[in-house]
């Protein structure tokens, strides 16, 4: 199977730090691919490599099987702070980049309207953070790109701004635009993502679709007794197929949940006071936190 965008053992080494370490991402056409990772995980570096803003130390990038410079003409992006000319208006910013990208200047107002910046005549230096971010998105939209790469685009936006941003992304995605969006795990954009890539300390830990994610948010058992250490020892001794571990103030069962009833009997038989024994379902947040560690 060949992907729309993929990387092959991509490495970016800064003087002492390997910011991107043998990463292989796979993005299908039409995806909203969420690159999830904590601060410093290497998200921005990976996106900059895709865009040619940084040269890989080793490994390759495949952009829809097209020569890279030609392919990048079809990719819009917003990386870190939006790059804007501060002393001129939103329209003039759009005009400059329309000229550069060879786009029709008559489309400028249509795009500005999409991001609610039509008829905004102030110079950009007087814009709020949210307005700058929206103008950055507007620039990314120039020349009808097939792919849009956004690096933590909603950082610092208020809830209404986030909702607007999400709506624009979803609408464009329905029109066929593929997105790659980075975010630190729990932000509001994770909700619209169709495929995830989890990045931690420069490595891609895993990739999965949003459907797979639901099946991965596993059930687990939670047991609290008056002597958790003893409980854990008894479980391990009597139920070799059950996976159990001490987790904070409780014992967590990750495999062999069907034995919960028998475990209860065993613990009671051994004179332990079982104050809680429940079957829980992991939330998406818990899943990510678990995968990212720490």
């Amino acid at each position, binding site marked *: 199977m060949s992907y729309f965008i993929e990387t092959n053992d991509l490495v970016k080494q800064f003087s002492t730090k390997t910011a991107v370490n043998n990463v292989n991402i796979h993005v299908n056409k039409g995806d909203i691919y969420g690159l999830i990772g904590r601060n410093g995980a290497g998200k921005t570096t990976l996106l900059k490599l895709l865009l040619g*803003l940084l040269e890989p130390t080793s490994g390759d990038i495949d952009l829809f099987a097209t020569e890279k410079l030609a392919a*990048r*003409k079809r*990719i819009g992006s917003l990386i870190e702070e939006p*790059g*804007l000319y501060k002393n001129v208006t939103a329209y*003039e910013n759009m005009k*400059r980049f329309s000229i*550069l990208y060879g786009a029709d200047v008559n489309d400028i107002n249509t795009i500005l309207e999409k991001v609610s910046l039509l008829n905004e005549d102030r110079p950009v230096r007087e814009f709020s953070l949210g307005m700058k971010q929206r103008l950055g998105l507007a620039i990314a939209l120039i020349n009808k790109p097939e792919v849009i790469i956004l690096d933590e685009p909603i950082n610092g936006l208020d809830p209404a701004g986030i909702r607007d941003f999400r709506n624009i992304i979803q609408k464009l995605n329905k029109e066929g635009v593929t997105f790659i969006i980075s975010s630190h795990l729990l932000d509001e954009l994770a909700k619209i993502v169709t495929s995830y890539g989890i990045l931690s300390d420069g490595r891609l830990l895993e990739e999965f679709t949003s459907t797979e994610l639901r099946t991965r948010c596993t059930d687990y058992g939670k047991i609290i007794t008056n002597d958790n250490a003893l409980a854990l020892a008894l479980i391990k001794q009597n139920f070799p197929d059950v996976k159990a571990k001490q987790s904070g103030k409780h014992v967590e069962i990750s495999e062999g949940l069907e034995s919960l009833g028998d475990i209860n009997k065993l613990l009671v038989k051994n004179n332990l006071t079982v104050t809680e024994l429940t079957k829980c379902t992991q939330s998406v947040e818990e899943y990510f936190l678990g995968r990212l560690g720490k």
Partner: protein
Amino acid sequence: MKNLLKFEFHKLFRQKSFYVCAGIMAAFSILSIILIELVVKTTPDMSNLIDTPRSVWDIMLGTLNNANFVLIAGIFVAIFVCDDFSSGTIKNIYSRGFSKTKVFFAKLIVALTAVLIMYFANLIISIIMGLILFGTHLFHAKYIGLLFAQLALIIGYSTFAFSVSMIFKKIGPVIAITILVPMVIGLFLSLFDVALGLESLKAADFWLEGMAARLSTVATLPLQIILSAIGSLIYAAIFAVIGWYSNKKLENY
């Protein structure tokens, strides 16, 4: 490349600093022409120090030095080039499939064109002033050669400022380097000349500063004019290659 050039020219003509720098140069030109005239008129002794009689042609050659031309041109180039780096807009350029090489040369072409436009604007002002104050007498073919050599020198200087801008990318350090480094090099070469007791063939004469001084007076020998012009273009080529290569390798934006 066509879109890159259109884009850079569009920015240039909407950049205030372009008009401000051109205006400052014009003001310098006019003031220094008037100042020299006043000095010559009021202090007869001074007329020995300044080539007299003078004509519009001498005033024309003075454009280069009177207006502190290369200094202001260097500052303009720095402002023009560093803008895309300080505002982060360079990301919007590189990320859309424009190679660093093409971006470099498009910017170089537009920066040099801007500086040459400024130079011609100043030249016209100087010529008008010269025509008002003096006549068209004392014309010599050498003036044409000197004018072309001045153009070459401006290209050499501006390419230096341009490459420094593309390498360091931050307006403060770039302006400091653009102003100080040529001066310091000139100073060291002069010291070197003095130390070795060089008189006819001076090292300082082969540096941009020395050439600039020579190209402002008609007393310069034709061979020196030609050497200065060729030297300036060689410097331009060397600076362009250093700037292009460094910018290609560096990822400091």
